């Protein structure tokens, strides 16, 4: 085993980059769950859609336009999903929601195949972020650093909005007790709708930034779904803190597990999830006591 400090810095940066990508995805999912008690398995499919939109837009207007437009387009799809299915499924049990969104995964996956074909697409990393940066004694791809910074910016933004603004206070009140919040004159339904759209946009953003790293293929949504669910269940559903903690735990366990114990790495994260559920059945930082 290497004792080189640079090696560990590199792994830590890799872990952080994976964590931030998962954070972008899981924060939307977890807040939607916390606020609406809605289990949206199609969140991964929205991420894949974000990557596809980004690939199409980037081919026409370049990367930065794609970076801005893909989340908007995915939020648009979110509006359609919300008015078509989710609004109607709000009052059903978790099982019905899991099944409807499981069906949506099938539908969205095949729709992307029909529109964009089966072959993986690729996006170029924008020229500005193409090189490598010397950082803490290691050379690290600028684009990956950009993902880390982006994740931290989104985290800071969300923490500010949720913790320090009136909208944030309304959202927290809605998570805590939606009936009471409605009694206090908050339009909880409209709040739900806005949060859902922001969650979808974040999933689209995650897809857009992941697209240059991975190839854009129809099943990328299915592949990311399980890690995202693990993150929010370890962290505890509904809380920002939980999404941060869950993403960091997943990113570091996955990355360092692969380095230190390659045979066990894939089992490790599932074992950790099982352990968390046994010890704290509602995750580490659940939104409600």
């Amino acid at each position: 085993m290497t004792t080189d400090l640079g090696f560990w810095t590199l792994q830590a940066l890799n872990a952080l980059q994976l964590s931030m990508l998962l954070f972008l995805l899981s924060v939307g999912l977890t807040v939607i769950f916390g606020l609406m008690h809605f289990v949206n398995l199609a969140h991964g499919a929205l991420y894949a859609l974000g990557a596809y939109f980004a690939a199409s837009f980037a081919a026409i207007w370049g990367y930065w336009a794609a970076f801005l437009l893909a989340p908007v387009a995915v939020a648009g799809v979110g509006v359609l999903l919300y008015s078509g299915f989710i609004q109607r499924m709000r009052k059903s049990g978790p099982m019905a929601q899991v099944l409807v969104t499981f069906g949506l995964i099938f539908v969205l996956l095949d729709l992307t195949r029909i529109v964009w074909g089966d072959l993986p697409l690729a996006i170029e990393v924008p020229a500005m972020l193409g090189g490598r940066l010397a950082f803490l004694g290691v050379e690290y791809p600028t684009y990956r650093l950009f993902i880390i910074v982006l994740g931290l910016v989104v985290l800071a933004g969300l923490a500010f909005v949720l913790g320090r603004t009136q909208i944030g206070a309304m959202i927290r009140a809605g998570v805590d007790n939606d009936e009471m919040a409605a009694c206090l004159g908050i339009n909880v339904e409209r709040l739900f709708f806005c949060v859902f759209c922001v969650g979808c946009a974040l999933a689209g953003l995650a897809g857009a930034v992941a697209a240059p790293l991975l190839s854009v293929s129809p099943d990328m949504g299915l592949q990311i779904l399980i890690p995202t669910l693990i993150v929010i269940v370890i962290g505890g559903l509904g809380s920002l803190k939980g999404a941060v903690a869950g993403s960091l735990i997943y990113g570091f366990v996955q990355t360092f597990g692969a380095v230190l114990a390659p045979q066990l790495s894939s089992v490790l994260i599932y074992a950790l999830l099982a352990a968390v559920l046994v010890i704290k059945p509602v995750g580490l930082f659940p939104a409600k006591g």
Partner: protein
Amino acid sequence: MFHHTPFRYAALVLLASGALFQAFTAQYFGLEILTEILILAMLVLALDMVAGFGGMVSLCHGALMGVGAYGYAVLSTTAGLTPPVAMAAAVGITAGISWVIGAICSRSHGIYFIMATLAFGQMAYSYVFEAPIFGGDDGLGGIERLDLSFIGVDLNDTRTFALFCLVTLAAMYGLAVMILRSGLGRSFSGVMHNEQRMRALGLTVWRIKADVFGLSGMIAGVAGVLAAQHIMYISPGLMAWTVSGEALVVVILGGLGTLVGPLVGAAVFVVLKHELSSLTTYWHLIVGVILIGVVMSRANGIFGFIENSFAARSKTTEINPKAMEVTKDA
């Protein structure tokens, strides 16, 4: 509690005669499809037992089936046990693992239970995917079928094997009905309806859940052993979470908590899959639309829908309790 209504008996007779007719008249391809239906039916029977009657919506039943399949494959080839011993051992191992999973997850409810079982299923999947003893992502081949030549039955014949699966499925159905009607099964349903009350009555809730989950895993293990013997080759794809998801879809399409419905669902699903995939490569799209339609219509699956409309017309039989509603407050 599970009841056999005249309508359910009629449906069973219809299903059995349809399967028998198919088994004696169909050619090779038809028999393969029949066997596929029968094995899937066994898996969804096991799943309906826990999901429909105890609210334990498991996303690891596909993996449990895989444990049975891999257990049989490794024990009968690498370990060199004779097929009957390997079968019994594989089913026993699956039941044991399933009991442990049930015991560990018994405290979780709703979405957490789904996630916890998903975690265990994926754990098994990733382990098998990497472990050389299980052939990794290449899978395992050279699996033998059970030798019943001493009573003059040759299971290497496709028709005979289909009939063998049918007989096993009938036995498993009988077993599931017996379990659900026993004291254990009644307590299990009681736990779904009101866990607090069952605890107040002095029952050990986690034991009840673990016991039924173990028995359900045993049936899934039998399905796995038959799946391994059917294809004579297994790959980790058998254990992926989407298999469990599909099994859940079949249970819902058929009718949760009816035991007969999932059998109907299995037949419909496999036939639909083969018919649609020969028409279009986008058959998942159609299955997805059907699934969304069935769940949003709030009918309890195909069978549940027909059963309820019959019951509403005659008013003689009790309307099936809406098991889907019960999981709401879990």
